[in-house]
């Protein structure tokens, strides 16, 4: 960041500056309700500004670095050549549909949707909006509804596109739907606001894999919102790999609403970005829903990875599981801020939350903050947090067998992280993640069990 003469002034207006200066463009294809949603979202940002560290949910994340960047919106006209190379670099697909987005806009020539079961829609969001279906307003009234912070509001105001998945009752999608968000800049820093909506009908089943990638050294900002609505008995798995440029910014909200006896799981791995915030908000809105949230974050250098999670048990008999692990190296900073709320009528709730961290350097930093807010008696809640260093006895054991110290550290570090990798049941995806994590932790690529 250059400290130009306008820097002081810009910091003064940081809460309403930078990203907030971006205004929704008039769009001829927006339905009226959406145009007004965008307008009110934009006004909301103007009125409330961006969060500060006084906000409970943002106390560990400094937003000045991102608010100082004069981001611009990406123009739709650009070559997709670099995107194609980067997306090919992900390796073979996962066997299902792949939708690719370049700077938040759908790239049909880099996408392959294929055959789908009857009634299933997998498309880009803009296409759905352009169809002008009257039911859309109802569907989107929730997703373009109230904002709980400026990033989510900004996404509503500015989103160009994203993915849209809708599954009718009892539809089963065996193969994962892969969403690839590629960002690049060829000049000023750019911001994209992808919006993904997944509507899972009663008894339906699907898997959605979200991947965020960029080019090394490039400064851009991804401000993503991904929403799931699970109707009774729906079973949905979500995976996310955040492998952005280490100079980029990544703000994401995963928002899930679960109806009766539905089941949702999410596995997120954070590797990239200088500042990344992967926020999860789950509402178990009806009886007997279960959710499992898993996260692995690996900040190094000066990276900052913030992981706020809020699970609201609003109905009886819900089950929630959270397991987050962090490996922090260099001057990296990892944050786990987990909040479980059990509402008065959520009797029989069973909630567990665990956060474990491994610090690899003296300058690495972890903030872990489990919070339980229990408003009923009939609950089982457990939470725990740990921050540690590599086990000296295990290190000596490996070295005494001839394994050089550096390699022994890599093996033990990977062993700590692999529990999260092993939780991914899709072989092709697990292999992909295994490679990324092993590379990051300087672990020999061969990972025999």
């Amino acid at each position, binding site marked *: 960041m250059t400290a130009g003469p306008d820097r002081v002034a810009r910091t003064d207006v940081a809460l309403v500056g930078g990203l907030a200066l971006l205004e929704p463009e008039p769009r001829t294809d927006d339905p009226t309700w959406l145009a007004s949603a965008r307008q009110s979202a934009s006004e909301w940002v103007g009125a409330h500004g961006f969060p500060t560290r006084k906000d409970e949910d943002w106390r560990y994340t400094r937003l000045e670095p991102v608010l100082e960047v004069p981001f611009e919106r990406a123009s739709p006209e650009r070559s997709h050549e670099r995107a194609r190379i980067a997306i090919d670099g992900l390796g073979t697909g996962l066997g299902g549909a792949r939708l690719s987005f370049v700077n938040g806009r759908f790239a049909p020539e880099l996408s392959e949707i294929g055959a789908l079961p009857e009634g299933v829609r997998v498309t880009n969001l803009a296409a759905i909006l352009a169809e002008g279906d009257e039911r859309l307003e109802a569907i989107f009234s929730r997703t373009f509804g109230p904002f709980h912070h400026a990033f989510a509001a900004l996404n509503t105001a500015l989103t160009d596109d994203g993915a849209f998945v809708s599954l009718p009752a009892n539809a089963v999608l065996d193969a994962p739907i892969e969403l690839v968000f590629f960002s690049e800049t060829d000049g000023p820093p750019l911001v994209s606001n992808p919006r993904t909506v997944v509507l899972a009908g009663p008894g339906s089943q699907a898997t959605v894999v979200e991947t965020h990638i960029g080019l090394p050294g490039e400064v851009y900002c991804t401000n993503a919102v991904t929403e799931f609505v699970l109707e009774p008995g729906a079973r949905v798995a979500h995976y996310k790999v955040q492998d952005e440029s280490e100079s980029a910014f990544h703000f994401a909200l995963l928002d899930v609403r679960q109806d009766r006896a539905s089941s949702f799981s999410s596995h997120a791995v954070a590797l990239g970005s200088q500042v990344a915030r992967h926020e999860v908000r789950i509402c178990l809105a009806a009886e007997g829903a279960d959710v499992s949230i898993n996260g692995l974050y690996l900040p190094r250098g000066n990276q900052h990875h913030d992981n706020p999670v809020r699970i609201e048990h609003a109905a009886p008999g819900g089950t929630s599981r959270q397991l987050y692990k962090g490996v922090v190296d260099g001057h990296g900073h990892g944050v786990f801020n987990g909040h479980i709320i059990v509402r008065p009528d959520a009797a029989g709730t069973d909630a567990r939350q665990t956060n474990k961290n491994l610090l690899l350097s003296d300058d690495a930093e972890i903030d872990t903050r489990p919070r339980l807010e229990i408003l009923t008696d009939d609950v089982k809640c457990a939470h725990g947090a740990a921050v540690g260093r590599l*086990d000296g*006895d*295990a290190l*000596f*054991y*490996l*070295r*005494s*067998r*001839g*394994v*050089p*110290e550096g*390699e*022994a550290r890599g*093996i*033990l570090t*990977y*062993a*700590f992280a*692999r*529990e999260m990798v092993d939780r991914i049941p899709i072989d092709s995806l697990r292999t992909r993640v295994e490679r990324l994590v092993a590379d990051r932790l300087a672990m*020999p690529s*061969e*990972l*025999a*069990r």
Partner: protein
Amino acid sequence: MLEIKNLHAKIGDNEILRGLNLELKAGEVEVLMGPNGSGKSTLANVLAGHEAYDVTGQVLFEGEDLLAMSPEDRAAVGVFLAFQHPVEIPGVGNLYFMRTALNSLRRQRGLDEIDAMDFLEIAKEKMALVEMDQSFMSRSVNEGFSGGEKKRNEILQMAILEPRLAILDETDSGLDIDALRIVASGVNALRSPDRAMLIITHHQRLLDYVVPDRVHVMAEGRIVRSGDKELARALEEHGYVGLDEASPEAQVATAARP
């Protein structure tokens, strides 16, 4: 092969080894006994390169200064410690661990690495020696192993890594009779003219299966007596205190031995 001269080791102000002298020759199996707290395990850890101790004195391995080497370098020249308390390492597969160890040693010795398939063959052969089945190899290192399984896993590593000097720190402790027999037969199978073993034990019963060339008794950080296998029998009969009272002249003789 191994010459230990006037070895001292302490943690903080607590001096544990106090001028220990010991010599081991290739082909010999020697037993080290002594009461709790006499410094047996400290000696084993110091020889393997544990960094917790302040160490002075001299340890020569094949004429080289062992104390100047890192733990991995000691392994590369052929020193092996079978741990009294083998460490559990969740997330690291046993087979992978042993192959990584063997290949690390081979690399440091300028040899080609062994690939996964060939290693599996080697491991199978050695597992038969300690009567371990293959399921142990797909589990994490020592995780959830019983006490006896952990000790057998140590002997398995010894068989795979083929050290020049093996130090077995109470490998027989806590074993039932079958496990003891298995461990002992592993030890006997690995006796060889160019390998030395130092077996630390509390119990005479291991010596029903493994016949040592010499027996040493340690007390207060030093070797206080040395003798043949009959010394171990005398210990069993009289205890450490009784032994000293029974034959005080033996102590003088021990002190005179280098």
